[in-house]
């Protein structure tokens, strides 16, 4: 029983983080049909904001809010710097500019802060453990589960019930038609980047909460995870991104539990093999996106 509880908590907390990461990536992909390769750096920005404000004496919660705000600001900045100037002209150009922006941010962190890991202030609760039905689990896992439930519900509400969200979904299927109804293209795209930055900021706190430190390359793994989760789930479907995130977490956690010590270092090879099998079975991902779609 304790084992089962432990397993479920592990899957849900990892899956919640993965799902939020994937959602942040797919929100932009859905509208622009472009992967934002600078997405991982938003997580890095959140981490370094925590590090830089750690000496300020501000309450932790305020620092956390500041970190999320900075991730949002840099999300919108990504649009202005890497996407807006070239997005109507060339897909290849945007691939390169988003990589370039990613590199620029990483190197700025290397140069102006440090290549070494920097400590991020965390409240005590992040390192405490709690016993549930005999299973001992870190409290931060429960925080992650709670945060992902709240955020997934909030994003679902935004996308289904608000005019902005419905307009974003419409823009994701047919951008030109949405514009012909008066939905301003730039507002929709900036909102998508802001939402993406918000999710990256929160995920950044949760993710860095696991490790306790931030390095310039901290965003690489979340970007990869988000990318794989969206590929499994369906590149253009928001629910697909969530399903993909949880499924990837289920695979990772199951392998963690079952592989022997010798094989554990090859865990990613096993994970990717399974991902390839899923894609052979469902090349478009588990959940198909909207039927039509076009680029601006």
């Amino acid at each position, binding site marked *: 029983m304790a084992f089962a509880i432990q397993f479920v908590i592990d899957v849900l907390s990892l899956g919640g983080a993965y799902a939020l990461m994937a959602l942040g990536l797919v929100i932009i992909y859905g509208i622009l049909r472009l992967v934002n390769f600078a997405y991982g750096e938003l997580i890095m920005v959140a981490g370094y904001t925590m590090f830089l404000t750690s000496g300020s004496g501000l309450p932790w919660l305020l620092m956390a809010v500041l970190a999320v705000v900075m991730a949002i600001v840099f999300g919108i900045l990504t649009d202005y710097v890497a996407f807006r100037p070239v997005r109507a002209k060339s897909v290849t150009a945007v691939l390169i500019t988003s990589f370039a922006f990613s590199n620029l941010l990483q190197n700025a962190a290397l140069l102006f802060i440090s290549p070494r890991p920097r400590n991020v202030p965390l409240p005590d609760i992040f390192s405490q453990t709690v016993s549930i039905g005999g299973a001992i689990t870190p409290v931060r896992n429960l925080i992650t589960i709670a945060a992902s439930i709240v955020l997934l519900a909030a994003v679902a509400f935004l996308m289904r019930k608000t005019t902005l969200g419905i307009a974003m*979904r419409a823009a994701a299927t*047919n951008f030109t038609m*949405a*514009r*012909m*109804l008066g939905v301003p293209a730039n507002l929709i795209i900036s909102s998508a980047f802001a939402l993406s930055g918000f999710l990256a900021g929160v995920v950044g706190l949760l993710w860095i909460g696991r490790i306790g430190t931030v390095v310039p390359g901290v965003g690489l793994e979340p970007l990869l995870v988000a990318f794989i989760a969206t590929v499994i789930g369906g590149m253009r479907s928001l629910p697909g991104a969530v399903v993909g995130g949880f499924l990837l977490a289920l695979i990772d956690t199951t392998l963690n539990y079952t592989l022997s010590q010798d094989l554990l270092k090859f865990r990613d090879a096993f994970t990717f093999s399974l991902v390839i099998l899923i894609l052979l079975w469902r090349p478009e991902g588990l959940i198909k996106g*909207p039927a039509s779609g076009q680029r601006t």
Partner: protein
Amino acid sequence: MLDVRDLSVSYGTIRAVRGITFTVGKGELVSLLGANGAGKSSTIKAIAGALKTSGGAVTLEGRDITSANPEQVIRAGLATVPETRDVFPDLTVAENLMLGAYIHRRDHAGNRENLDRLHTLFPRLAERAAQAAGTLSGGEQQMLVIARALMARPSVLLLDEPSLGLAPAIVERIFEMIETLKKSGLTILLVEQNVNQALAVADRAYVMRLGAIVASGTADEIRSTSDLSAHYLGG
């Protein structure tokens, strides 16, 4: 109301529309006729702001909208129903209509009134309000895109091939509805390949061929022009 002067549209080196001039007066229903590839849809897209013009001018009630983007064109009072019948398939019928009123999104009372009016005009859409638009039949989708365009309360409506690919009985209903809209005082530019039906509702018409206007006049004049079929058959 809508004045198009020397409008040209090019795709690379291909000139799809070669300096056409036409007008649509207030409350008029003007039809733009022509075979496939005559440049009708390019004209519509250029007016709607979805396609760059390479020359000429478009004015709406005296306002220059030549280089306006799509979101500015609709705000100026010109709504477009593209030939591709672009419903948002994943959104419900109600959500599609709600987005049609995007430019009036703060005017809830006005939108509700307008929606009630459109629901009487298209009872089917009221019945299917909660259904995903992608599950509607072709005819219902056409009704939805027209109703959605009307939610913006435009002064001019551009209808691009509303009869395309629909069964004759449904085409009949669509044209009845176009007449109703005309009677309500709406200014309409109707692009059609379905010449007889278009001329039956139109006040005036222009015939396009290879990107140029080759004939114009009242519906009766156009109908009596013997070489009309030649423009369609490419003779």
